[in-house]
């Protein structure tokens, strides 16, 4: 009974999302429209959260919807996996909807957003509760297409149209691949229903084909290197509240799809050793490439988009480890890896959503996305700065925030992995842990750069010095995920048992006992002698220590004297003498020169005399290697083929009749 409650709540969330999409029909004023659709989205977010929580606590249920094709009604089902992802979607949608109420103030073209943002949410909600391939693909396309319109929102700009087109193209390529993987599973069992697919026997070769199709399909949507080409183009141009949802939850829905198809429908028993190794390699590659490219960006939202690639990589490292461990018969450790992956999934949803909302607040207040002309915003936007700092610390995996907990769990999984298969495979596990450490440390460097350049120092432009704090809606919208980040960081022991249903479903083992064997304070994944971490005690200790130090060192009446900056005895500094985003990452550009292949141009003008320099300019461009070496050649190849056959279009009527005839003969030959 209680399981149905959870499913009912999820369906109610879908209905409120649908209602929100219908609000433009009322033709009310922009002001009322904004309030209505934001309110309905808030309700959707709350319902999704509640439904996820009840689903995780009380278990799931299944239902047939009286919708869909005549011979194929829509199956919906709630299990631990869908409940967890509903919770993830809800816990970001709820604050984003509140934030949107403030962010969209003064936005004139609200109708497009009011239609497609709720439809986009509806698509994501539908995917996670669908229980047959048809429903899944239907909602998947709804998600992809409605998000296309959101990316193309500011279609006046040429650049945005191009980004949206690339996005649409790659989303559909992904959709095709996913459809292919369902087709393989359908061929094995003859039904679109997931419950039948689960029981079906798939021969190893076909299973591998389905794995590869699903991997590439969902990987494209999740932005795994080198399938990430659309991501850094599409995320920056969408409105910030939409980028928050796209980066925070849409990429997670792709992860959901991957887990659903590979872990659930095919099952952990079917894993082959190279599946896990491939996922692990793709994850390590994405994590390091993503963060390295992020370091060289100076468009704030583009930088955050590259960080999404990094974090998807981290999730895949954990999933890949879990797949390897499951294949080699260590279900407990595999469960730990799976939990780590899921934990990082919800963490990334929260802090990346917060980061995009913060970037949106900065954009809203200064009208700029380029970091090179910001600076000193902490004085003008204290709330935004403080909340953004929380997200920066979370994504840099610093205690006591949540990012550290999931990375810690991944390290534990990697370290506990016993000898697997051959030496090469055994070595790849610690190597991926090293890549994770590198990615984490580089992320910290990157976010020192982001926070330092955007919020600290002097303002580098008039827009930055005229910035103002954002309105209360936006502040509240950012504060909620910040609180969640802290809670998930200090109370992991309360949260992990909630997620325990997922490994129980996939691997038939439970981690709940060992995780909180030592009470709610101590996170002990396996055993207390093995490893333990208590963020709450550490935080308490640090607060006490800091408090004592402050109390001792702050005798009454000694004020701080304010003066000009010392700056080594040269206080006449200028805002342009500060380190900016490009100069901050210059050492890394030099160290990883082989990966970046940056194009640097220094031009020195000496017009008057060869010793008198008039003007020096330095231009550096760091391109994406994948674009240069994969996308552009593929693009050229397709254009070449298209040119080759384009004259076939220009034939007369008889040629078209011949095409039709040939197609009919071909189809008859195949089906009879």
């Amino acid at each position, binding site marked *: 009974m209680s399981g149905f409650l959870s499913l009912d709540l999820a369906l109610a969330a879908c209905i409120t999302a649908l209602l929100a999409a219908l609000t433009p029909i009322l033709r009310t004023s922009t002001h009322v429209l904004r309030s209505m659709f934001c309110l309905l989205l808030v309700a959707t977010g709350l319902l999704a959260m509640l439904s996820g929580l009840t689903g995780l606590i009380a278990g799931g249920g299944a239902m047939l919807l009286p919708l869909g094709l005549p011979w194929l009604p829509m199956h919906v089902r709630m299990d631990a996996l869908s409940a967890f992802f509903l919770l993830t979607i809800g816990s970001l949608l709820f604050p984003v909807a509140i934030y949107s109420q403030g962010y969209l103030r003064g936005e004139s073209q609200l109708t497009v957003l009011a239609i497609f943002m709720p439809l986009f949410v509806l698509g994501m909600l539908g995917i996670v509760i669908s229980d047959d391939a048809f429903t899944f693909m239907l909602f998947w396309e709804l998600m992809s297409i409605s998000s296309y319109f959101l990316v193309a929102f500011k279609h006046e700009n040429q650049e945005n149209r191009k980004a949206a087109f690339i996005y649409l193209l790659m989303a559909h390529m992904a959709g095709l691949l996913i459809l292919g993987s369902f087709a393989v599973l359908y061929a094995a069992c003859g039904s679109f229903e997931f419950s039948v697919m689960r029981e079906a026997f798939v021969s190893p070769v076909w299973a591998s084909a389905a794995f590869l199709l699903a991997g590439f399909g969902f990987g494209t949507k999740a932005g795994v290197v080198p399938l990430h080409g659309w991501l850094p183009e599409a995320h920056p141009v969408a409105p910030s509240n939409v980028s928050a949802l796209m980066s925070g939850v849409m990429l997670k829905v792709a992860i959901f799809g991957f887990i659903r198809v590979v872990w659930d429908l095919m099952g952990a028993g079917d894993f082959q050793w190279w599946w896990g190794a491939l996922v692990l390699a793709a994850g390590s590659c994405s994590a390091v490439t993503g963060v390295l490219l992020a370091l060289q960006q100076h468009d704030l939202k583009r930088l955050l988009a590259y960080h999404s690639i990094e974090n998807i990589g981290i999730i895949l490292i954990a999933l890949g480890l879990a797949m390897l461990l499951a294949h080699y018969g260590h279900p407990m450790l595999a469960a730990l890896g799976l939990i780590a992956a899921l934990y990082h999934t919800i963490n990334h949803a929260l802090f990346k959503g917060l980061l995009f909302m913060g970037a949106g607040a900065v954009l809203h207040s200064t009208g700029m996305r380029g970091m090179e002309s910001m*600076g*000193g915003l*902490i*004085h003008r936007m204290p709330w935004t700065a403080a909340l953004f700092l929380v997200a920066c*610390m979370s994504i*840099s995996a610093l*205690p006591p925030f949540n990012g550290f907990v999931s990375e*810690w769990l991944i*390290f*534990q999984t990697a*370290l*506990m992995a016993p000898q697997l298969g051959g*030496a090469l495979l055994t*070595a790849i596990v*610690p*190597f991926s*842990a*090293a890549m994770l*450490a590198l990615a984490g440390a*580089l992320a*910290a*460097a990157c976010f*020192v*750069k982001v*926070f*330092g350049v955007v919020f*600290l*120092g002097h303002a580098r432009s008039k827009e930055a010095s005229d910035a103002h704090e954002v309105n209360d809606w936006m502040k509240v919208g950012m504060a909620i995920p910040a609180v969640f980040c802290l809670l998930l960081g200090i109370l992991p022991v309360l949260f992990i048992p909630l997620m325990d249903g997922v490994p129980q479903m996939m691997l038939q083992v439970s981690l709940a006992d060992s995780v909180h064997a030592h009470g709610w304070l101590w996170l002990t994944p396996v055993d*207390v*002698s*093995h*490893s*333990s*971490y*208590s963020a709450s005690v550490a935080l308490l*200790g640090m607060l006490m*220590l*800091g408090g004592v*130090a402050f109390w001792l*060192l702050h005798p009454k009446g*000694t004020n*701080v*004297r*304010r*003066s*000009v*900056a*010392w*700056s*080594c005895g040269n206080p006449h*500094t200028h805002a342009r*003498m*500060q*380190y900016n985003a490009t*100069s*901050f*990452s210059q*050492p*890394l550009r030099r*160290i990883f020169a082989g990966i970046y292949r940056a194009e640097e141009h220094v031009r020195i003008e000496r017009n008057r005399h060869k010793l008198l320099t008039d003007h020096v300019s330095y231009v550096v461009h760091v391109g994406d290697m994948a674009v240069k070496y994969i996308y552009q050649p593929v693009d050229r190849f397709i254009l070449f083929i298209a040119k080759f056959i384009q004259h076939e279009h220009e034939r007369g009527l008889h040629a078209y009749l011949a095409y039709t005839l040939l197609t009919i003969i071909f189809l008859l030959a195949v089906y009879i």
Partner: protein
Amino acid sequence: MRSALVQFFQAGMLLLLAPLLAGFVATCRARLQNRRGAGVMQPWRNLRKLFSKEVVMASHASWIFRTAPYVVFTATVMAASVVPAMLVDTPLSLIADVIALVALLALSRFFQALAGMDIGTAFGGMGASREMTFAALGEPAMLMSIFVISLSAHSTNLTSMINHTLNSPFALHPSLAFALVAMLLVALAENGRIPIDNPTTHLELTMIHEAMILEYSGRHLALMEWAAMVKLLLFSTLIVDLFMPWGMAVNTDAISLVQAFGLWLLKVAGLMIALALAETGMAKLRLFDVPEYLSGAFVIAFLGLLSFYMLEVGA
């Protein structure tokens, strides 16, 4: 109860001895260079002077600049109190394992770098950029070298790792040798010692740590300096714990505790003498040779991991 007392004593000792240790290294270096040196107590005198001085701060410094010294200090001290120095099984070591310890140090570095960028001088940004870049290369190397020991001890808890080393028969493990070399290289870099950075220089174009804290004064500067000293003692204690824990007290009886305390001081002093020798004998590296040094450390640590898997697991 008794172990909790020992814990407090140990944490207090780490705090109080850290400046002495810094003075000890400086004195050793001075003697090696045929100077008298300012004496072991000099860092303490410096700290006392700074604590009683007025704080002067740039007019546009934000709250980040004011809170950073406290965050840096408490995170470092928290990390230090987790490391067992005399007693193997201390209650606080459960709070954070080695990975969390590295993360606490990363937290302190994060705020130090932010504070460097807060004033908006060229030096601050330069220090922050370099520190974060080199830390990004050093941190994986450090974790890799710790993982070598974690893998053989099946644990990332310092207490369990020390127990494992204490209880296993003495043998020369090639993987441990690799790990030790990598750890020493990283420890030099993390603490800003020669050949990476020179703690005694001021206003040099290659400075890293100094560049970040240039704008600090008074008690804030004292906290930053003290945290750096605690970090040096923390790293040397960590190296002692991981690679030569013999003589640490397993029980809380007075004799073994005193013995362990003495041995700890001796071992740390030995490491410091080695540091002084190395700093006297070596010159500072060019800034862009540092990445090669650190990636060298990483490769050595990774070789340690591989040799552990290849040579020691099967055997």
